[in-house]
């Protein structure tokens, strides 16, 4: 699947210069960085390209939601209750799938599933990505500090990690959201969904960083024993240089993988929170909330379950596959 570094080394052993990019004569030798090599490997990996393409597609859909709405001609808030039967279930075949409602209608409120999914992806992906980035940054900082500094700092960060892990997530979320929204919004003001999004991201940030921190700490502890770290120390480099130039570039692979796993878990986690009334509430379209709600209609409106269900499956699968591919590309040894 990918050219292993062993082959690279072997090649350079015999004829130095042949692995380098065919440089123009006289321009000097330019080596290819591990990053460039990884990118090259990634480009040759069909799975990576397909899953990456799927992810790009989802992001584009989310970004282009208003454009899609314009072309599709239906508003995410528009109700088509005339197309529901007296139990609030969509009329017609397969949950109300028609030429104008591609994925059918929601039971009860009778809104168009397709356009709500498009907008819902926008909300959910934004929350998941933002939470993913924030937790990864916090986790990496905490992990690098704990792993590299050791001693009391490690102990304190370890303690905080334990604390965050054992903290009652639900209670904090349930207590935080109304309290905070009361502080910012009057009793007659609707809480805008942007605020709820921010609160959700905060809640995830409070709890989600621990796994990244643990992972990074472990990596750093083992890196700390590597001789190039000692070499840098013997060279008298500063701590900042040590952390950001020596350590960090070597743990990108696990960080990227944990990020690629964290993002889909926030999409689904957000679904649970929405269900508990802490997350995004109606009428804001939200993919996670939609999935959780649809599950209850498994027996009566399978179409409603099918489209969001398949979409989240593909989304998470694409994240997983892409994450694996990135890891393989960055760290080919693990797949050797």
């Amino acid at each position, binding site marked *: 699947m990918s050219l292993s*570094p062993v082959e690279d080394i072997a090649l350079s052993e015999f004829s130095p210069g042949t692995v*380098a990019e065919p440089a123009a004569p006289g321009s000097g030798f330019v080596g290819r960085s591990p990053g460039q090599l990884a990118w090259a490997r990634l480009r040759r990996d069909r799975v990576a390209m397909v899953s990456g393409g799927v992810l790009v597609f989802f992001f584009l859909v989310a970004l282009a939601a208003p454009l899609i709405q314009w072309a599709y001609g239906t508003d995410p808030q528009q109700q088509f209750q005339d197309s529901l039967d007296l139990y609030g279930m969509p009329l017609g075949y397969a949950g109300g799938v028609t030429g104008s409602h591609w994925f059918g209608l929601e039971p009860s409120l009778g809104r168009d599933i397709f356009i709500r999914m498009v907008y819902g992806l926008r909300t959910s992906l934004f929350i998941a990505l933002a939470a993913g980035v924030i937790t990864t940054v916090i986790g990496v900082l905490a992990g690098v500090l704990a792993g590299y500094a050791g001693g009391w700092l490690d102990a304190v960060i370890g303690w905080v990690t334990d604390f965050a892990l054992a903290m009652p997530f639900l209670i904090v979320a349930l207590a935080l959201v109304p309290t905070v929204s009361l502080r910012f919004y009057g009793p007659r003001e609707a809480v805008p969904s942007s605020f709820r999004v921010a609160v959700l991201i905060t809640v995830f940030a409070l709890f989600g960083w621990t796994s990244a921190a643990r992972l990074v700490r472990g990596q750093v502890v083992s890196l700390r024993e590597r001789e190039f770290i000692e070499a840098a120390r*013997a060279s008298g480099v500063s701590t900042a240089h040590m952390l950001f130039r020596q350590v960090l570039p070597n743990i990108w692979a696990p960080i990227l993988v944990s990020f690629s796993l964290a993002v889909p878990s926030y999409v689904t986690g957000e679904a649970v929170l929405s269900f508990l009334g802490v997350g995004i509430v109606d009428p804001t379209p939200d993919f996670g909330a939609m999935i959780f709600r649809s599950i209850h209609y498994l027996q009566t409106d399978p179409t409603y379950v099918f489209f969001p269900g398949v979409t989240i499956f593909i989304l998470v699968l694409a994240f997983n596959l892409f994450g694996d591919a990135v890891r393989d590309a960055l760290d080919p040894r693990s797949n050797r």
Partner: protein
Amino acid sequence: MSTDPPNAVPLLAVQGLAKHFPVREGFGSRILRAVDGVDFEVRAGETLGLVGESGCGKTTTGRMLVRLLEPTAGRIRFDGRDITHLRGRALRPLRRELQIIFQDPYSSLNPRHTVGKIIAIPLQANGIRPPGGIRNRVRELLEIVGLNPEHYNRYPHEFSGGQRQRVGIARALAVQPRLVVADEPVSALDVSIQAQVVNLLRGLQRDLGLGFVFIAHDLAVVRHLSHRVAVMYLGKIVETGARADIYQRPQHPYTRALLSAVPDIERSREDRGRIRLEGDVASPLEAVSGCPFRSRCWKARDRCAVEEPALVAREGREQLVACHFPEPAPAVSTEEVRGEPVAG
């Protein structure tokens, strides 16, 4: 073969150096005495060979010398200054004078940096601005260690093990140190490459007047570089002296055993007189009583179990040995010190 006589003033002086690691086993906790009271001196331009089996504490000693490990006890003086417990900023000037070459050429180079950057980092970190610019200095260094200076932008994975070790050497040389601790710099390399690197180091020793603490697990590699040799066993120096003395008249049984294991292509296997050590190495975790080597020593007597032999001169020579029953006469057949490297 080195020519300059050793300088009279010691550049590096080590006294009673010790490193103890706490080790937890099951539900108990014990102390691992990796290095347990080591004394030696290195003069400017001089090379000390530090020899011993793996686990004897020689690498730990090397790490303490360049202050990558904090000594538990003892004192290290560099150029007359006590550096035993220097920290942080105070350590900076030392970094310019004392450098280290690592054993593993694969793990000692940051895979995410170009070799140019790897060599430049010590310069930048120490605020050294070479006259021709850092880039030129790096090219110069690459040339000194026998690499193509145009490989400046290459990454470590694009080099072979021997080439990488040259990069490691260039990095150590970048700040123009006075003393380099070379921690088994060739043991991870193929034999053919070993010789090239040893030759490179010899050249540097000669051309730059560098002092080395050359750590190795056998006496063969050390022979061609060292002015003096110290043999370590279980965290202690058991014998130390001038190269010729050690190789021609080893007094400690352990030194003899080590020497007998040096391959010698000129003699047949039969008359090599190889000494095979039997018995188990005493655990560095157990409290020492008597001579640490006694469990493997064929000359061990009752006295060895009771009294620990001191490292003292015997027979009025400048050769110190820690043995109650030192070898009286040259018994090993490697009579002469050969001028040529072991191989190639």
